[in-house]
């Protein structure tokens, strides 16, 4: 039972990571009809840029480097969409082709990152953070900051979507692109904002993952891609609150699973959920995909 609660605590921490990334991915799904296989690399880029600012150039304090890196990922996402993904999606009606293009983007980013950052394990330059007992859980102060931050971000996204004009326009665009087109919304601008937010959240998710695992490699975020998918699909693609709930479920499931199954299959819990959900509940949970 004791072990269970420790893993449960780790699950909450993972849920924070997944929630950040899944919220970003679901925002992106809202305005595209294809699946972005490079999203895991967007996450990795956040952590790697933080590492660069923190250890390689400028030697910024981690907590300053991290938000700058996340913003840079947001900018990168906008550029990647404008220069690459959007033109292909416009030209080829078959979403499978655009998915292959994102596949290529993933391969491109991963290999370029390997050239720049090598395949070695990297560590942020920050004080070692020792696990502390908090109730039945075992968390390091850094992880607790990440969790608190994730909750804060979720509240901010809620406020953005529900109370601001920008948020209303983002929701309108995500609900119905053609309707938004005719109702005077600047689609181009809102699309850019959405991609920026999505990249920003991916970056934050990637950084949070590196903090939680206390290290990073160029590929560590990539393997979380399907865990993020699972959270998004579980919550209903395009639904921000669904993604948050999905993240909680997935975080807890993946981290407590090793108590019952081989730890090597931890992430497969996510893959499995993707397969089973898409097979048996695609219409209810994924109403937006495949819109033309």
């Amino acid at each position, binding site marked *: 039972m004791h072990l269970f609660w420790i893993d449960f605590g780790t699950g909450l921490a993972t849920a924070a990571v997944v929630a950040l990334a899944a919220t970003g991915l679901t925002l992106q799904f809202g305005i595209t009809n294809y699946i972005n296989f490079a999203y895991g690399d967007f996450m990795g880029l956040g952590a790697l840029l933080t590492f660069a600012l923190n250890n390689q150039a400028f030697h910024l304090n981690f907590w300053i480097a991290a938000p700058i890196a996340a913003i840079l990922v947001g900018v990168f996402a906008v550029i990647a969409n404008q220069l*690459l993904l959007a033109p292909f999606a416009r030209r*080829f009606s078959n*979403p*499978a082709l655009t998915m*292959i293009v994102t596949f290529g983007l993933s391969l*491109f980013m991963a290999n370029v990152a390997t050239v720049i950052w090598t395949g070695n394990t990297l560590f942020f330059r920050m004080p070692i953070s020792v696990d502390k007992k908090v109730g039945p859980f075992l968390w390091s102060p850094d992880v607790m900051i990440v969790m608190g931050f994730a909750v804060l971000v979720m509240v901010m996204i809620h406020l953005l979507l529900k109370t601001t004009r920008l948020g209303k326009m983002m929701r309108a665009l995500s609900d119905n692109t053609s309707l938004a087109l005719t109702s005077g919304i600047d689609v181009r601008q809102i699309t850019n904002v959405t991609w920026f937010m999505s990249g920003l959240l991916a970056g934050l998710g990637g950084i949070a993952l590196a903090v939680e695992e206390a290290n990073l490699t160029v590929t560590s975020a990539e393997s979380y891609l*399907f865990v993020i998918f699972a959270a998004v699909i579980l919550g209903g693609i395009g639904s921000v609150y669904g993604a948050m709930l999905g993240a909680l479920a997935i975080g807890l499931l993946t981290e407590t699973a090793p108590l019952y199954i081989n730890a090597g299959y931890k992430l497969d819990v996510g893959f*499995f959920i993707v*397969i089973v959900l898409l097979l048996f509940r695609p219409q209810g949970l994924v109403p937006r995909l495949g819109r033309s």
Partner: protein
Amino acid sequence: MSAFFLFFMTMVFYVIVFWIASLGLDLVWSRTGIPLFAYYLYVAVGAYLTGLFSLPHVPLQNGVGNLFGFNLPGLLALPLAAVVTGLFAMFVGAVFMRRLRTDYLAVVMVAVALVIWDFSQNDITLVSGNTGLTNIPLPLAGVLHININQWTYLYTGVAFVWALALWWIMKTVSNSPTGRVFRAIRDDSVVAATIGKNVYRYQILSMGIGGFYAAIAGGFLAQLATSWNPSSWAPFEVFNVFTMVIVGGVGSNLGMLVGAALLQVLFIQGPTYVASNYLHSPTFETLAAAAIGVLMWLSLWFRPQGAVPERLKSTAWYLGREPALQETINPDLTVEERA
């Protein structure tokens, strides 16, 4: 000289093997319209099965062993593995094509490949986990008493004969009424059903043939390396095969050879050779891998039909002669409809 020649022959071997692999993916994806992102899974299954069929049974000990082994000659193990993989591919197709629309199918296929990849890493009872299969025998080498270099030359020839046969089969299939049904499904599966074709059955058939081709390619890779393990492949390597298909020319059998050659020579085997023999650093190789992504984007954008475009079959081709009918164009019909 001889080292270079060996490298050259090995590269030719890879070109041939990936020609076979892209022929299979081309059938499933470009000619039937199924985004089979799990294609590399079948390459791996074919490799594992070829190994298992040609190795003896090794009982599990210290985390190494294989569940079964048939000790068959390698030349026989290969097609047998391909048939079993084809059946496996049909089974996977039957399960997933039944319920899923193509865009979900793409995601699910990747997830399935990832799950099985993880399984191959973690499960030691079936194929020794990360150790994988080792000492896969070189077919014919023992019988003919030849060394590894001679074997490479010989087996490149064997692979070429296989490739020619598979190319002829693919050509025959795609030129046949069955191939025409595949293309109808690719263009519009609703119409295909409307004109009375059992879309589901043909999709499964296409996946089975694709699985067979993938497995032949995988079996050759395993035999060349004499081993196969989870680091020999990754589900995402399917992207390279997609790129070969796109660059070569979707729907073109000879285009697949061009695509495979271009990628293997300029972006995969070539850079690996240069990196390890001259540059002594893997950076060049990694950059070449990144460049495959760029190649695919440029190719899809500027030449979506590929290097060797799909050839349409003319009336004369079908009739076996020029049509004799005198056309009677109705002048009314050349007028176009109102805007």
